[in-house]
């Protein structure tokens, strides 16, 4: 079950401070990288909810993000619906499709679940690639960002858009924590720990899995609507399984089932990608080597390694400090 620790709070504060500093001081290129990190972070949070807390390792979250991106684009351009409503509609559609996928795949486990979600993802990719309404290989353009001029914000400005994405990521993180701490979230974790027992207690397991997968799909869809607004162009490449695979790599790199870890993973992955690709076009090799190192270290990703090394020590120190403070107060009172 999800628990916040001192280290997790500290890491969140550090990440937030870093993002704010970057958002307020960086130039155009730096802001583009920051926005890329924030959108990827949203997608990997969605994946961590189902994979890290429910054991549902999905290879269709890229496709769910693509559904969000395409639905937003078509609703806001061809259908002429106001972008905020189009965004809501796209998120709802991604959630509904994810719920159906979750319901169908909930009875399979392990490699079979992965393969089933991969099949759904590739079906979505093929459909979007072939259907004329989606623009085929050429994709769709002419995407407008939300108009928030009523509250004095211009999202066409890179800095404002990055800050907007940061606010939404914060809201999504809060929602993820609420989901995992709710009755539904706790039951979902219970199912991962012991599905047979949860069923024997009277829980309709497939329904719980489908509900959480649907919520996770909504978050992936929201990331898709932001991705479409960020680049202002979308193509079927957004739905390929490699996007899902990349998201999974980021979750594992950061720390599966920690929520904070995938945020660390997203930042590390995008920064590494840009830094190493400036030196060599074979940046995937470097990321691959780092991933192998992380997996071989038997830690739960970068953040898992940090937690193992310093988490317990930090909590112990804080507990000692609180105890000695209490003792001091008692002595002073006496």
């Amino acid at each position: 079950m999800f628990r916040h620790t001192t280290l997790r709070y500290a890491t969140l504060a550090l990440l937030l401070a870093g993002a704010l500093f970057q958002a307020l001081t960086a130039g155009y290129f730096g802001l583009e990288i920051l926005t890329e990190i924030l959108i990827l972070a949203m997608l990997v949070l969605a994946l961590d909810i189902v994979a890290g807390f429910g054991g549902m390792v999905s290879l269709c979250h890229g496709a769910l993000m693509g559904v969000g991106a395409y639905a937003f684009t078509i609703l806001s351009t061809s259908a002429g619906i106001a972008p905020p409503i189009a965004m809501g509609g796209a998120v709802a559609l991604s959630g509904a499709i994810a719920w159906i996928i979750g319901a169908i795949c909930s009875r399979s486990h392990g490699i079979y679940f992965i393969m089933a979600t991969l099949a759904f993802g590739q079906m979505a990719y093929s459909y979007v690639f072939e259907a004329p309404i989606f623009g085929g290989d050429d994709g769709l353009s002419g995407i407008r960002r939300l108009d928030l001029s009523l509250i004095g914000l211009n999202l066409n400005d890179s800095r404002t858009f990055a800050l907007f994405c940061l606010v939404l990521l914060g809201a999504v993180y809060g929602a993820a924590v609420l989901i995992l701490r709710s009755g539904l979230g706790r039951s979902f974790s219970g199912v991962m720990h012991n599905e047979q027992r949860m069923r024997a207690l009277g829980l309709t397991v497939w329904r719980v899995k489908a509900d959480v997968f649907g919520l996770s799909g909504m978050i992936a869809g929201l990331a898709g609507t932001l991705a479409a607004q960020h680049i202002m162009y979308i193509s079927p490449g957004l739905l390929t399984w490699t996007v899902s695979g990349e998201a999974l790599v980021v979750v594992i790199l950061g720390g599966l089932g920690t929520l904070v870890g995938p945020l660390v993973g997203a930042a590390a992955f995008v920064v590494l990608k840009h830094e190493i690709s400036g030196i060599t076009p074979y940046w995937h090799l470097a990321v691959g080597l780092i991933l192998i190192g992380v997996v071989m270290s038997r830690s739960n990703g970068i953040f898992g390694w940090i937690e193992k090394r310093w988490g317990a020590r930090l909590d112990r120190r804080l507990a000692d400090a609180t105890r000695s403070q209490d003792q001091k107060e008692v002595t002073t009172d006496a």
Partner: protein
Amino acid sequence: MLKTRELDKKFGAVHVTRQVSLKLERGERRVILGPNGAGKTTLFNQLVGELTPDSGSVHLAGEDVTSLTVAQRARRGLSRSYQKNTLFDGLTVEENLGLAAAVHTGHATRLWGDSLARPEVREIVQEVAEQVNLMPFIHAKVSEISYGVRRQLEVGVALATRPLVLLMDEPTSGVGPEMSKAFHDLLNNLPRDLTMLIIEHDMDLAFDVADTITVLNYGEVVFDGAPNEARGSSLLREIYLGSWEDA
């Protein structure tokens, strides 16, 4: 409260349950005895719905539940504990009981609010923890408690769903004599209106707790009666090869 009618199950050529008919009244405590391979756990699995019988039916509180799923039967009041601990290992004792209590109170699928913080869930957790003597370990993780305490928790999790009928598969399996004695007291102190069906190899516990004893052999009911009748049964003595007198 719980009734089976001619339950029959075969695994290929092996006939594991032969026309088993049982009838448990409300509050009755029945122990099922039988040698290894007699079909006791297979019978349990058919009662809770983990296995589908080839023929026959299961009735709970007057309702035919034969076609219902495991979860549907559990929600109607049929709860079980397992021979091997089937707990939520990474969680605390409180969280284990809370998960079960949340399912019973309907908070397990709600998106708003922490199910374990609900007063009705907390009340059940507190009450069950006291019933099965788990209060000293309430905040400990399952991985931190002894095997015997885990057996208590195994029963506690089943109890936290507030069942009408509690099925226990060898609750004292693997525990020492002292712990086994504690289990006698624990089971004897459970509410008298709770119907219990227990698979057990511990003869002392069987004769101490049971109102009725049913003996299975090769999937067939060969004895059904009071504990004192069971003690004098030559057929049972034969099945257990004399271990009876040691009990």
